[in-house]
C-alpha cells in the first residue's frame, strides 16, 4: 500500500474511532430482541435512555450493582430478571440461576451478599411440580450462597403471556472494606484474569433447546462467585481494580464495557483463554465465538501487575477456580478498544456484538 493510501486509511480509521467513542444513542422506533442481548443495542438503551433519565452517580458507574450508603454503612444493591428458556438445562435451572446471578452481581461489586427478594411471574398452566422444583432449587442455592430470601411476590398471567415462569430478584449486600473497586480505575499494565473456562452456560442452554440437533457434554457453570471474590480481596486487596460477572455477552462484552468506562485499551491473548473442548466444538459448528457466550459462574478481574500472580493463586484455591488464568493486559492505546492477539499470530479488534445470536440465555 502506498504511503498516501496508508495515511488516508489511518485518517478513515481515526474518524471511525471518534464515532465509536461517542455515547450510544437510542434511536430505534421499537424494541427488538437485540436490545436485550447485552451488546451494542443494549448499550443504546442503557446509556442512551436509562442513565440520562435517572442520572444517579452510582448508575453512571455502570457497575453490576449500585451502591448506597446508609448511616455510614456501604451497601450494594442489584436487581435482575431471568427469562431463560428452557427453565431447566444441564447443570442448573432458572431458580438456581436467579440466586447465583443476583449474588454474583453483588460479589463482583465487592459486596458480601446478604439477602434477596424474589418476584415470580408464572404462566397459567405451569405444572405445580415444576414450580416446586424451582422453589427448592432457589432455597438450595440461597443456602449455598449464604443469603436469605426475605421478601417475595407472585403474579400469574394467562397462558401464552409468559413462557412457563420468569424470576425477578433484588439482592442486597454489604460492601467489603477490603474492596476499592471502580469501573474507571483500570490503568495500563493491569493484568486481566478469568476465574476459569468460559462459555459453558450459554452453550449448555443453547444445546438444551434442542434446536440444533447437536449434543455435547456441557453443563452450566452456575455458581456463587462470592468465595472467589473473598479470596481475591484477601490476596490482592487494593491492587484489585475491578471485577465483572461475565454473563450475557460473555467475556468479550465485559472487557469492552470496562475498556470504555476506564478509557483504556486491552490486549487479550487468545491462546491463553481457557475454552473447554466441547464448548469450542459447539461454537465452531455454530459459528459463534466463545468469548461472546454467557457464563454464570465466571468473573473477569483486573489486578495491578505486581499482585497478578497472587490473585491467580487465590482464585485457584477456590472450588470452581482451579483453572483461573491471566489472559491479557490493559494498554493505553487505542482507548476504549479491546484487541486480540490471535492464536494464529495476527491481531484484530474484539468489539461488542450488535445483537446476540442466542437470545434468552439467562
Amino acid at each position, binding site marked *: *500500500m502506498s504511503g498516501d493510501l496508508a495515511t*488516508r*486509511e489511518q485518517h*478513515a*480509521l481515526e*474518524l*471511525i*474511532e471518534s*464515532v*465509536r467513542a461517542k455515547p450510544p444513542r437510542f*434511536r430505534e*422506533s*421499537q*424494541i*427488538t*430482541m*437485540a436490545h436485550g442481548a447485552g451488546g*451494542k*443495542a443494549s448499550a*443504546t438503551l442503557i446509556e442512551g435512555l436509562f442513565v440520562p433519565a435517572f442520572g444517579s452517580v452510582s448508575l453512571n458507574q455502570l457497575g453490576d450493582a449500585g451502591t448506597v450508603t446508609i448511616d455510614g454503612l456501604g451497601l450494594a444493591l442489584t436487581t435482575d430478571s431471568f427469562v431463560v428458556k428452557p427453565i431447566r438445562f444441564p447443570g442448573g435451572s432458572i431458580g438456581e440461576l436467579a440466586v447465583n446471578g443476583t449474588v454474583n452481581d453483588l460479589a463482583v461489586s465487592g459486596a458480601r451478599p446478604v439477602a434477596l427478594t424474589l418476584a415470580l411471574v408464572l404462566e397459567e398452566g405451569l405444572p405445580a411440580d415444576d414450580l416446586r422444583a424451582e422453589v427448592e432449587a432457589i432455597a438450595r442455592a440461597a443456602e449455598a450462597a449464604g443469603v436469605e430470601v426475605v421478601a417475595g411476590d407472585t403474579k400469574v398471567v394467562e397462558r401464552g403471556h409468559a413462557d412457563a415462569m420468569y424470576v425477578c430478584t433484588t439482592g442486597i449486600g454489604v460492601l467489603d472494606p477490603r474492596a476499592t473497586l471502580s469501573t474507571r480505575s483500570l490503568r495500563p499494565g493491569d493484568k486481566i484474569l478469568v476465574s476459569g473456562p468460559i462459555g459453558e452456560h450459554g452453550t449448555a442452554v443453547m444445546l438444551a433447546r434442542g*434446536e*440444533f440437533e447437536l449434543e455435547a457434554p456441557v453443563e452450566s457453570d452456575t455458581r456463587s462467585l462470592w468465595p472467589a471474590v473473598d479470596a481475591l480481596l484477601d490476596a490482592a486487596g487494593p491492587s484489585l481494580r475491578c471485577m465483572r460477572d461475565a454473563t450475557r455477552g460473555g467475556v468479550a462484552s465485559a472487557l469492552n464495557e470496562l475498556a470504555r468506562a476506564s478509557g483504556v*485499551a486491552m*490486549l487479550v491473548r487468545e*491462546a491463553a483463554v481457557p475454552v473447554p*473442548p466441547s464448548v*469450542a*466444538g459447539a461454537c*465452531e459448528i*455454530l*459459528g459463534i465465538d466463545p468469548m461472546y457466550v454467557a457464563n454464570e459462574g465466571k468473573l473477569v478481574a483486573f489486578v495491578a501487575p505486581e499482585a497478578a500472580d497472587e490473585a491467580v493463586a487465590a482464585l485457584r484455591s477456590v472450588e470452581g477456580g482451579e483453572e483461573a488464568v491471566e489472559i491479557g493486559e490493559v*494498554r*493505553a*492505546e*487505542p482507548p476504549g*478498544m479491546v*484487541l486480540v492477539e*490471535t*492464536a*494464529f*499470530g*495476527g*491481531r*484484530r*479488534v474484539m*468489539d461488542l456484538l*450488535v*445483537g446476540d*445470536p442466542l437470545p434468552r440465555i439467562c
Partner: protein
Amino acid sequence: MRYVDEYRDAELGRALAAEILSTVEPGRHYKVMEVCGGHTHTIYKYGVDDLLPESVELVHGPGCPVCVIPMGRVDDAIAVAMQDGVIFTCFGDMMRVPGGEGTLLDAKASGADIRMVYSPLDALRIARENPEREVVFFAVGFETTAPSTALTLMRAKAEGMENFTVFCNHVTIVPPLKALLESPDLRLDGFVGPGHVATVVGARPFEFIPSQYGRPIVVSGFEPLDVLQGVHMILRQLAEGRCEVENQYKRVVPYDGNPQALRVLEEVFTLRPHFEWRGLGFIAHSGLALSEAYADFDTEVRFDVPGVRVADPKACQCGEVLKGVIKPWECKVFGTACTPERPIGTCMVSSEGACAAYYNFGRFAREKVAVS
C-alpha cells in the same frame, strides 16, 4: 480440536509467511482477490493479513451470499413475511439486512412470525409441526448452500408437503467473476478461489480465469493456513510464470466437483434469465429459480410477491466494495453513517461482509499497538 487446530497452527503460519516473503519480487505490488466472504472472515478473524508482506494486498471479492442480495428482494421477503398465517424462516444474518422499508428484524418486532433457522431442514420441520400455517424459507447463497435447499425441496415433495415454499435467491459464482474480470477499473494479479463452492462445482469451472483472462486461481480452504497457502501458491505461479487453476483444498474439493450435488441442483433449479445483485446490477444467468417440477414449492408462484426494485442508497458503495474497486474504509459512509448497528449496505451486515469484517475485527491502530 482435532481437524481444526492443525490448520490454525501459528508456527506453520510463520513458516509459510517466510516462504511467501521469499517468493515476492522486490519492488512489485501484488493484488490478490479472495473471492469468498468466508475467506474475508478468516483473514480478519485470525489476522492473516499481519503475516503477509506489505507488497501483497488482499482485495475482497463478491462471494458473500448476504451481501449480494438487493434491497428489493428484502422488501419482497418482508411483504411475504407480513402476510397472515405465514411463518417466515431465514438464516440469522438475513434478519438484519436493510430493505427499502426496514429489516426482517423490524418486521418481526412489528408482529410478523419470523424465525431464525440454521438449515432449510429446520424450516421443513417447522412446516411439518404447523400444518395449518404457510412456512416460507428465505434461501440465499451460492452453489455451496443450494444443494441443501434442493435436498430439502426433494424431501418436501416426497412427503407431499403442501404448506412449505422456498423464496429462492440462490446465485452462481461464475457470472459475477466474469463481470468482474470484464470490468476495466480493476487490476488483479490472481484469485484465492471459492473453496466451498468448489466442493460442489469442482475446480474445473474456473479454468476460464487463466485461459481467457490470464490470471492464476487457487481454490482454497477457509482456515488461516489454507488462505496463506493459497496466496503462496498464487505468488509461486506468478514467480514461475505459470497461470493455471490449482487446488489447495484437495482434502475436500474434487477437481470435477460433487456429481451427486450437481444432479440435485439440475433437478430442482433452473437458471433465471437475469438476476439483480446488490451494487452490481443485473447479471445474466446468475440466479437460480425453482424448476417447473418444483413450481408448487415456489414462494414467488404461491404468493403475491410485489417484485420491488429499490435503487441502492446513493451514499452506499457496496458495489465498488464487492468488486474490490475500493476498500471498505474508502466508502464515503463507512463507519460513520454505516455501521454494524445501523447498516446502510449489505456488506456491513453479514459476518462475511468485507465492511463488517473490517469494522468488527479491524485493522485498527495496528501501528499504535506495536509501539505502545
